[in-house]
């Protein structure tokens, strides 16, 4: 059963749930308020009756000059049917006349019983009836009792002789009928109005809930319409800057990131397909044209040489792609050791020198002090080589490339600056993307594939080397590598 109930709640719509919870809470509060009011009214009514009875008793006693603690005998009572109030003071007074009339309406019952409960005397209003008597009462007590089919409120005052002996009781009662009708009606009104209030409250809360969560419906509608082909859909932002506004803008931001990711993926696929298919198309086409007709030996040789060159380019590309894939699946873990940076830079520069010299580019290496860093030497070499080869590729002849190394706290900062064509600011963010090329036509004349920098980034990330880039179009580009200094990683080894 409990599971059923839970299931019912779990499939209930949010608006119904909000309305239900709200109605339950409000219903609970209303119930408390109604009950409190009812009991308070009841208490006030009874108090009034009790006060009236008390007053009546004291008047009867005062009239007959009787003290309940010094009871002389039932004979001392004067006519108990007399209007006690009128006995007192000036009965010609208008106010008293009014009061008298009123009191006559409020019938009261007076009865005297001896200690055994026998009726000694009673007021005429009682006619043949007898008020209930409770012999176990010691002090003055107030209680309800049934009298001739209707309820009365009555008080029972023990009458004691001077020596403390109980002689009898004075019982005074007033009818409760009207008061009980009022109380009963009040209860009925409360019981009736409870559901009458709750039902409209539920409906009202539900409609407020529907209105407040309507932006969520828009979120759902937009998200449902969303597919890979129309990722540019956005949720209309609600007017109020509230939680739903935040929800909508957060989801919009998420859509934005998804769109970026899809876009990047699409670009990657398109670029990869271009890079792989172009050399393939070149080789295939060249060979197809070659075998259509018989040709000179030299012609065959030159075309085959050309195809081999293209195939080498393709092999290089596939190798780089596979390397990236391996790094990305984290199958290759760097072997971090202490690396003296200067010899490493020297050897890379030495390797790149012929290419640079062929273009008339000078490479200067400025190292202020001998530094050692914590890195994988093979990977670090690949990083520097890639950046340097880019610098050479995009520099004009007779410009220069500068490599500088400096210490900065726990890091070693290595900067590689060229005076090449630079990278436009709006394209800087994408240069580490796989296959990204600033030149959108992906011209093969520069020989780049757009994988070098993504390899740099991947390798740097694996070794906790930070790569940043600054560039000014037509002025040059500076790559900054911030590597952890060996001392920070291997304090022990350094001290040996």
């Amino acid at each position: 059963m409990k599971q059923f109930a839970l299931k019912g709640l779990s499939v209930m719509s949010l608006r119904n749930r909000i309305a239900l919870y709200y109605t339950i809470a409000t219903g609970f509060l209303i119930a408390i308020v109604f009950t409190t009011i009812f009991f308070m009214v009841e208490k006030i009514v009874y108090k009034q009756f009790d006060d009236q009875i008390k007053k009546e008793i004291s008047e009867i006693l005062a009239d007959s000059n009787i003290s309940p603690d010094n009871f002389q005998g039932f004979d001392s009572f004067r006519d108990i049917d007399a209007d006690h109030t009128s006995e007192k003071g000036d009965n010609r007074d208008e106010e008293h006349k009014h009061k008298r009339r009123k009191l006559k309406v409020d019938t009261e019952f007076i009865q005297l019983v001896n200690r055994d409960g026998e009726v000694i005397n009673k007021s005429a209003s009682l006619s043949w009836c007898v008020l209930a008597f409770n012999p176990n009462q010691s002090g003055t007590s107030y209680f309800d009792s049934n009298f001739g089919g209707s309820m009365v409120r009555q008080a029972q005052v023990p009458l004691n002789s001077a020596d403390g002996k109980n002689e009898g009781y004075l019982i005074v009662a007033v009818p409760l009928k009207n008061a009980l009708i009022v109380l009963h009606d009040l209860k009925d009104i409360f019981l009736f109005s409870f559901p009458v209030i709750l039902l409209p409250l539920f409906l009202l809360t539900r409609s407020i809930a529907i209105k407040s969560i309507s932006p969520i419906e828009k979120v759902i509608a937009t998200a449902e319409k969303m597919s890979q082909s129309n990722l540019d859909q956005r949720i209309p932002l609600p007017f109020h800057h509230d939680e739903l506004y935040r929800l909508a803008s957060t989801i919009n931001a998420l859509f934005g990131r998804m769109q970026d990711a899809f876009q990047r993926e699409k670009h990657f696929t398109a670029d990869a397909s271009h890079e792989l298919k172009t050399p393939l198309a070149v080789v295939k086409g060249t060979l197809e044209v070659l075998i259509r007709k018989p040709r000179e030996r030299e012609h065959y040789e030159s075309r085959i040489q050309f195809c081999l060159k293209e195939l080498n380019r393709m092999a290089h590309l596939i190798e780089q792609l596979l390397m990236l894939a391996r790094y990305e699946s984290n199958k290759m873990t760097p072997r971090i050791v202490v690396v003296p940076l200067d010899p490493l830079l020297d050897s890379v520069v030495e390797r790149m020198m012929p290419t640079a010299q062929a273009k008339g580019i000078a490479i200067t290496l400025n190292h202020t002090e001998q530094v050692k860093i914590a890195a994988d030497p093979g990977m670090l070499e690949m990083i520097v080589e890639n950046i340097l080869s880019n610098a050479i590729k995009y520099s004009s002849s007779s410009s220069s490339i500068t490599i500088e190394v400096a210490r900065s706290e726990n890091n070693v900062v290595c900067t590689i600056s060229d005076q090449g064509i630079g990278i436009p600011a709006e394209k800087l963010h994408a240069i580490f993307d796989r296959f990204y090329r600033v030149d959108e036509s992906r011209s093969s004349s520069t020989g780049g594939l757009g994988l070098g920098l993504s390899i740099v980034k991947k390798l740097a990330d694996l070794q906790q080397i930070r790569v940043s880039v600054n560039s000014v179009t037509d002025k040059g580009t500076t790559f900054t590598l911030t590597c952890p200094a060996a001392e920070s990683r291997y304090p022990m080894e350094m001290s040996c």
Partner: protein
Amino acid sequence: MRLLIIEDEPGIAGFLKDGLEEEYFAVDVAYDGKSGLDLALTNEYDLLIVDWMIPAISGIEVCRQIRKAGSLVPILFLTAKDTLEDVVFGLDAGANDYIKKPFEFEELLARIRVQLRNRNRADDSLSAGGVTINPVTHQVFAGSIELTLTPKEFALLEYLIRNKDRVCTRSRIIEHVWDIHFDSDTSVIDVYITFLRRKLEAACCGNLIQTIRGVGYIVREPGMA
């Protein structure tokens, strides 16, 4: 037939030019969108082969500009982009056909022939005055006799027959049969016309090509005055 290839990849442009020239086409090559567009708008080409991703102006833009200039020259898109959206996008930009890299050279030739084919003719062979030429097989028949023509002679005859009953001016002949590197000395046309007439004469069709003095040449279907 004169073609323009707009392709930045020298490898592809290279074999296309080689292969198409062997098929008796006059071929010009532009290595970027801007110079390609200039060439396409200033010269009269029979067909353009355009790569999508080229420097300066993209292939799509070249295509749009050419169509905007009112030219109806057939454009063949040649690209590595291979998704359905790319194909549709390319064709919608004004291309007549779309070939994905890598492609078969024979297929490219067939698609070029489709674009050059006269709309209301089912096969590729052309004929006028009893002379039939087949651009697919490069065969020329005068009646039942097969003639042997050099590539240039063949290209010249093909151009004249394709434009039969219309006067082909000397400059248009140069434009369509020779490529852009040819020095515009139109006397070379007369030389080739003489060669052609001599070969046609041997097959008894000597008066197929008529001279319009001071203007150019015309091939007339006999009986059409």
